[in-house]
């Protein structure tokens, strides 16, 4: 047993030692789980040139879109690829971990090396102007008066917005009817048209539409720099911090020197003012957590999703 392990370790050391003498010596591919142009894609394309810059050594990063199954096809591919640092992938929270609960998957929390989370797009609770609901208090009261009478549009089930609403329902002790649209754009249109009374969206999706929606609260610990005039849910008595997070992972079991190089580069990307500026310009609220912090964050998100799945399975 010990011999076998030793042999494997030796082989690993040997192969990685030769192949990765000068990491990176060939292009690095980032697999994006969604179509070009979406939020996750934009994040990857923003990050790529800065990874090149901070890895140095003439590194080149290629983006490859592999959309499908809510990003699961790409992330499964990443987990199965050689852990040599040449295949990375985008990672969405809480979506990716929630998917491991609601269907049989080939991945789990330990399938990846967690490099860095870059985006945290907090949830907002909004209502339609036509609904007459202008405050969080009214939003809770209306649902208490007639349970499930208030319809809440969102982009999908098992995503960050669903988790946000589940948390809110529990804290407010109120029942809502969930209306899962196919993506946030149609959900937002339905809220604006008054076809659903309310909705859970992300802050980046509502900043341009402030005049046509009532924004009741933002699910952040402190006010978002994106819209500092908007009150948080916490201020209004509902301690909910929730959002859609997007980062970059590698397969589990990266060679130590490669992992160290990548983490160092990610650390620098996260502090690069040019990068932060570009993210802001493209409407991405940033929240950087690198390496172990990212892994801890993932664990937390999985725990929350598990609790919600056990009490209110969405499928």
């Amino acid at each position, binding site marked *: 047993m010990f011999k076998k392990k030793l042999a494997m370790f030796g082989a690993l050391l040997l192969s990685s030692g030769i192949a990765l003498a000068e990491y990176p010596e060939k292009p690095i591919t980032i697999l994006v789980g969604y*179509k*070009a142009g*979406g939020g996750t894609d934009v994040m990857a394309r923003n990050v790529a040139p800065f990874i090149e810059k901070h890895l140095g050594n003439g590194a080149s990063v290629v983006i490859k879109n*592999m959309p499908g*199954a809510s990003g699961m096809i790409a992330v499964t591919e990443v987990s199965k690829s050689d852990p040599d640092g040449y295949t990375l992938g985008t990672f969405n929270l809480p979506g990716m971990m929630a998917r491991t609960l609601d269907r049989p998957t080939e991945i789990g929390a330990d399938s990846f090396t967690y490099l860095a989370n870059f985006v945290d797009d907090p949830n907002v609770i909004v209502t339609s102007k036509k609904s007459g609901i202008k405050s969080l208090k009214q939003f809770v009261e209306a649902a208490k008066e007639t349970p499930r009478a208030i319809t809440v549009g969102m982009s999908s089930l098992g995503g960050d917005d669903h988790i946000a609403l589940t948390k809110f329902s529990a804290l407010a002790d109120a029942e809502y*009817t969930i*209306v899962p649209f*196919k993506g946030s754009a149609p959900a937002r249109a339905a809220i604006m048209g008054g076809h659903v009374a309310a909705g859970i969206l992300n802050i980046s999706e509502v900043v341009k539409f402030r005049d046509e929606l009532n924004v009741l609260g933002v699910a952040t610990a402190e006010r978002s720099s994106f819209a500092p005039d908007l009150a948080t849910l916490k201020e209004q008595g509902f301690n909910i911090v929730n959002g859609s997070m997007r980062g970059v992972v590698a397969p589990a079991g990266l060679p130590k020197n490669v992992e160290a190089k990548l983490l160092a580069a990610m650390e620098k990307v996260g502090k690069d003012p040019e990068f932060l500026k570009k993210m802001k310009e493209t409407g991405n609220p940033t929240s950087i957590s690198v390496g172990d912090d990212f892994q801890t964050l993932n664990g937390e998100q999985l725990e929350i999703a598990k609790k919600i799945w056990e009490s209110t399975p969405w499928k």
Partner: protein
Amino acid sequence: MYEMLIMALPGVLQPENFLAIVFGVLAGICVGAMPGLSATMAISVLIPFTFGLDPLVALGLMAGIYNGAMYGGAIPAVLLKIPGTPAAVATTFDGFPMAQQGRGGEALQVAVVSSAIGGIASALSLMLLAPPLAQVTLLFGPAEMFWIAVVGLLSIVFLLGGNLLKGLVAACFGILVSLVGTDTVNGTDRFTFGFYELLDGIHIVVLLVGLYAMPPVVDLLQTQLDTTQFKYNKDQTKSIWVAIPKMFRFWKTWIKSSLIGIWIGILPGAGGSMAAFLSYNEAKRNSKNPDDWGKGEPEGVAAAETSNNADTAAALIPALTLGIPGTAVAAIMLGGLLIHGLQPGPMLFRESPDIVFGFMWQFLFGAILLIFLGGSLATNSFAQLLKLPRPLLGSLIVVLMFIGVYSINERMFDVYLMLIFGAIGIAFDKLKFPLPPVVLGLILGSFAEENLRLALTIGLGDWGILTKSNTSLVLISLVVLVVMTPLIKKVRNS
């Protein structure tokens, strides 16, 4: 609302974006000129290749091809009595007799100028009608969207003409395909047979390439084209700039046919060939010398060609504002927009005005360019296309189909799937089942299902939600009207 239109103009005029239109129009004319190849096929083969392009370059290509192909179809229609595209059937009525009289060049000139005018009218209608329509689309919630999808599906079955039962079967096949994949409301896997590649459903481009490109390619390889009666005498043809002033006498036909084309374009389901037939009949009815029609009356060519180009941009009005394509080509273009992350609907006009309005300009420029590219430069060279070796062309298209479909998700699974749809397409073609209902069935089937279920969720399970708003009631009466049309026609005829 319209100032955005002006602001989008500089982007369109950038060299690479403008070149895309020029190239698109040229390619479109070539495609249209090849009997069997249509705009639908060309754009569906092209779309996978536009992933990496700038949106305006990609859309410019598509707009150019669409406009070009609608004219290109007239070339073999006039010279060989073989319509290059289905929409050019009515062009053969008077175009071919003209060619036999040695006036083929004149017929093509009338065709190109009329096509351009129809295209310009269509682009203008898109520019003027889409933005205000987009503003009222917020009125359409899930219940209303469900009815729109029903109207669209039924109108393609009931208004397309031909065998009603076959149309219904084709639409149902499309709906069946739309059921494959994870259902969007509660995430159950349907008809995936354990293939994770099917979890997201079947990509529209995979279906389109198989269905629309395979049968014509097989046909291309199967049949020999007789080009011996090919007559095109360049010497007898005057310069187009001399010929144009003489065409102004068609102005009434141009206006009427444009309006018919635009109307048919907006209606879901009908499409270019129906527009051309209607306009031809209308122009003939109003003519002072209806007896000359069918014997080489240039006005007949003008009517047909104006109208089949007038439905191009107009078909995008419901596509851009509601996400409901009016024709199969519009459906494919919708796919092209989605690839670039442009979600049709009211928000499109606010979130990417530069691209949406740029796209409209591209349609306008594409139409104008027709006169220069199709008319004054190269009609003669395009006519030579008919002499291309067909096996070469056929195999080239097959290669493009494989590469294109593979590149959507970079997996062979899609290519196999495309081949299956290709076989189905060939069977449909041989058995004379119409293809457009399949495409609309795939798009509108899932659309209808999703919106019906959303509406029922909102209504807490009460089906009454479907008749609650006035918009819904209007749409329901439209449904009744569409379904009754064949009956009304029958009563009228007897």
